[in-house]
């Protein structure tokens, strides 16, 4: 099963749950050791908790156009087909704006002179390493770059082999509900949403449910973190929508302090290990 762990609102405990779920599965038996993908490429934090030994790295980005001005006739076809205004012809010059380019290849294919070729514009890095039996992958968007989606797409392509089979795959998603979250959830078998029982948590949980269940048609389950603060809104919403709440983690200063230091939830409270393995089995059976 490929499970995406998301939330809508930031800071609800996605990484906390994802990391301890991975550690709990890895502790059961060798066949259950998961692939772990930190898809929050803007702010990747899972490595701070899993502490993998990084053994492979690669630069990633988009293929952007490079124009051979000897063959270019400045006909303007490239600029006319670009939906992103990433290439423009001014007088006898062609300007490319890498930060606007999505790397779709239209200008290259449409150039009547074959004057355009593509080169990699590096926007971030991917890294791989093992944390005990967990195979860990994460991507990092370079500071100042805008587009997270291509990094996430390439991270998934690098990390998840076509023959992944029954191997557990855990995808730690970024916050929000727009394209980076969709890219993380695409191809997943189920989504686990981590929320907190506050008006902010509820508002953003609704949006995350719209993406995962309504737009992508995936089975969804919920973890309530910091249970005990706020109000009963999240419980009432989950009951009304038929969303199973599979785990509750109480509001507890010892947990907050442990996470602050970089400890995992199961290092702070080992009893969550059994509950997380059960949670995994329950999600695998969701309709």
């Amino acid at each position, binding site marked *: 099963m490929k499970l995406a762990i998301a939330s*809508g*609102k*930031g*800071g*609800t405990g996605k*990484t906390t749950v994802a990391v301890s779920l991975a550690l709990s599965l890895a502790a059961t038996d060798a066949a259950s050791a998961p692939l772990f993908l930190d898809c*929050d490429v*803007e*702010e990747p*934090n899972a490595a*701070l*908790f899993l502490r993998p030994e990084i053994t492979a790295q690669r630069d990633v980005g988009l293929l952007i156009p490079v124009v051979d001005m000897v063959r270019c006739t400045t006909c303007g076809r490239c600029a006319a*087909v670009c*939906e*992103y205004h990433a290439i423009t012809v001014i007088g006898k010059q062609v300007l490319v704006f890498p930060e606007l380019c*999505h*790397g*779709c*290849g*239209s200008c290259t*294919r*449409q150039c009547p002179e074959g004057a355009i070729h593509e080169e990699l514009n590096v926007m971030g890095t991917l890294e791989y390493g093992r944390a005990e039996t967990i195979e860990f992958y994460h991507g990092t*968007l370079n*500071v*100042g*770059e*805008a*587009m*997270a989606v291509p990094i996430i797409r390439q991270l998934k392509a690098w990390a998840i082999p076509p023959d992944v089979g029954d191997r557990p795959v855990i995808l730690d998603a*970024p*916050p*929000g*509900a*727009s*394209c*980076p*979250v*969709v890219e993380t959830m*695409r191809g997943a078998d189920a989504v686990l949403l981590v929320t907190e029982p*506050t*008006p*902010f948590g509820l*508002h*953003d949980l609704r*949006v995350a449910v*719209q*993406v995962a269940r*309504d*737009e*992508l048609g995936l089975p969804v389950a919920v973890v309530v973190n910091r249970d005990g*603060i*706020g*109000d009963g809104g999240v419980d009432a919403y989950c009951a009304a929508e038929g969303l199973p709440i599979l785990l509750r983690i109480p509001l507890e*200063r010892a947990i*907050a*302090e442990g*996470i*602050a*230091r*970089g400890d995992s939830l199961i290092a702070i409270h080992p009893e969550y290990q059994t509950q997380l393995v059960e949670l995994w089995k329950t999600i695998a059976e969701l309709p």
Partner: protein
Amino acid sequence: MKQLVILSGKGGTGKTTVTAALAHLATQDCRVVLADADVDAANLGLVLAPVTEETHDFTGGRIAGIDPAVCIACGRCAEVCRFDAVRVCTHPGDAYAVDPLACEGCAACVYECPAHAITMTPQRAGQWFVAATRYGPLYHAHLFAGQENSGKLVTLVKQMARLRALDDAADLLLVDGPPGIGCPVIAALSGADMALIVTEPTVSGAHDLERALGLAAHFNIPAMVLLNKADLSPAQAEAIVAYCATQSIPLVGRLPYDPAVTEAMARGEPVTAGNGPVSAALHEVWMRLRQQIFDNAS
């Protein structure tokens, strides 16, 4: 008019709580316009009791659509699509179809389709709103689930809020930013006079703070730091304070970890509406910010 943007890098550190409190405090001595630049998960309205005055549609990019009656199922569209957005349909006739959530609107398939079966259609991708609140007008938006172009919508919301601030001769445009460092954050930061980065003393908070400060520096925008939940981990707190000192980034205050913050949120009001340690600390934060924004940043 000065523009202050509240950011964090890491989500859930308290951006919206701080923005609402600053809105409350700032209106006591200047005229304020508010913008919520988190269009994926807009929460500022939840604590400001906004009364909506205007609602507008937001048209994002265009996406491709294939006419199944014209499609000859040659598969050329799927070959050229680099976003894995075109799939063969299981419907009778085996026409191809576009996954609207995966399509990035590049139109590469339109130019390659030999049957001219593909057209581009603008997407209604969200809505934006003008609302009245007790602390001044609020500009905010809702990007529909899973849509692209959040940066474009953030830019629109900020542009409208900025025009309003100029029309009203406001002193301060206060912008509640999204988490992360990618396109919506860059859009939120663009044109700001100053960024206030709210962080927390955790390993994740410290890691993400460095990247958020890096982003502000990349765009030459002066930044300040506010340490929230400061007593959660004294060691992490001191590490962040020391880091700010080495980078010459002013620390404008420390807020204690206090359930009163969540209780105020549940009541739908800024934490500064009540008394208590967080409220008192935020009063001091605003005095320092006011000085930095209006005296130093001119």
